[in-house]
């Protein structure tokens, strides 16, 4: 007799979906110089607003990617841990998703990444609480409204039309530059081919001067990223929570 698992009633493709990835990223912490180019590139690409000194100092900066570093020891035996760019890990099994009452953060079944649907968000902030990586940022104020922030009146000219500008009360996070994924796929489809490895990259990987961020298909074993993440020194942070992160960190250098 077939065993019955009530908790997986109607599971169908969902479980498989979680295990398989499509897009992934490898971040080589040994190469990262902490230069913040990815941080600014991301902000420029994704219309991420700036929040000003006071809010930024109070944990309200909206960076979708932040570079973490820790200290070990005391002077003179002080050591800074390698820079760790922390961004949405696009978990296969994302803790942020099920807790949203409005389906505002869901798993894309076609791109296998973690989506944030801004217009559906009602701002309960449960997802951000439940994100073990703390990579979600919330629009605490109307930072993108020129009535609130008059500098926006001219700065808005650089807004990326492919990315929705968020208003107050909306959660947001790294999207793996899904607009670029769509653009590349659309172009490839129009030309009747598959998207090539390295044909496009999210803004962070594109800018990274140290080439520490590599992006691509992790379900394609020949892609550069999947070759990198199969290396021995690749780790997934907080993997023990069962999140199945799609970002692999390469720790400790190549040799």
């Amino acid at each position, binding site marked *: 007799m077939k065993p019955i698992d009530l908790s997986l009633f109607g599971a169908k493709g969902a479980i498989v979906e979680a295990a398989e990835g499509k897009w992934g990223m490898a971040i080589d912490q040994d190469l990262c110089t902490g230069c913040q180019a990815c941080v600014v590139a991301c902000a420029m690409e994704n219309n991420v607003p700036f929040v000003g000194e006071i809010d930024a100092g109070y944990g309200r900066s909206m960076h979708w990617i932040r570079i973490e570093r820790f200290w070990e020891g005391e002077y003179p035996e002080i050591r800074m841990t390698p820079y760790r760019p922390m961004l949405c890990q696009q978990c296969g099994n994302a803790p942020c998703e099920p807790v949203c009452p409005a389906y505002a953060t869901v798993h894309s*079944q*076609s791109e296998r990444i973690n989506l944030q*649907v*801004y*217009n559906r968000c009602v701002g309960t902030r449960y997802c951000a609480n439940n994100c073990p990586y703390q990579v979600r940022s919330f629009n605490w104020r109307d930072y993108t409204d020129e009535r609130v922030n008059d500098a926006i009146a001219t700065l808005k000219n650089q807004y990326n039309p492919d990315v929705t500008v968020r208003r107050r009360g909306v959660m947001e996070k790294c999207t793996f530059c899904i*607009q670029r994924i*769509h653009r590349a796929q*659309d172009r490839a*489809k129009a030309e009747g081919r598959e998207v090539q490895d390295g044909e496009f990259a999210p803004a962070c990987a594109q800018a990274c001067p140290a080439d520490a961020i590599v992006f691509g298909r992790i379900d394609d074993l020949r892609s550069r990223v999947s070759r990198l993440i199969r290396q021995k020194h690749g780790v997934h942070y907080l993997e023990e929570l069962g999140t199945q992160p799609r970002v692999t960190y390469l720790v400790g250098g190549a040799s």
Partner: protein
Amino acid sequence: MISSVVKWLSEPLGRVALLIVGLTVISGAAWGINVLQTTPEQPIEFPHVRHVSMGIPCLYCHPGATRGPSAGLPSPMKCWGCHQQMEITKTSPLLPPLVAAIENGTPLRWVPVAQVPDFVQFNHRPHLAAGLNCEDCHGNVAQMTIYQNPQVMNMGWCLNCHRERSAGNPELEKKLLDCGTCHY
């Protein structure tokens, strides 16, 4: 006090007053909805019907649809390409704004009608590539003067079509019903 008001409302005069208030509210709402639905005023009361009947294809003036997200509204120079050779340009009462635009080098400020909100990342190209025709969404423009949306362009409308077209194809279903296809 309250009871006397309630009592007054049950008298004939009170009922008439109720009726008047009710009618005002309903007609106000109807007017509001009407205002939201009516076509905005365009710089030129553009007769789509005339142009389509001459056999001009949609893509002649809105060529962006095959290339990318936006179909585009024609610039005055595009209009002028044909109109400068036409006698009607001088005689038609509709066309002085075009002539003025050409003479002054100013653009014509067409008001976009078929719009989706900012948080919807709509792209014309894949829709055309999937074999849709303009009139499938924009209605029978050949019968219109100024363009009007044939239906409310809301999410349910998009979804219904996406559902129909992807039915039975799991891969397509995944793509077409994915939130991330339109919202990011």
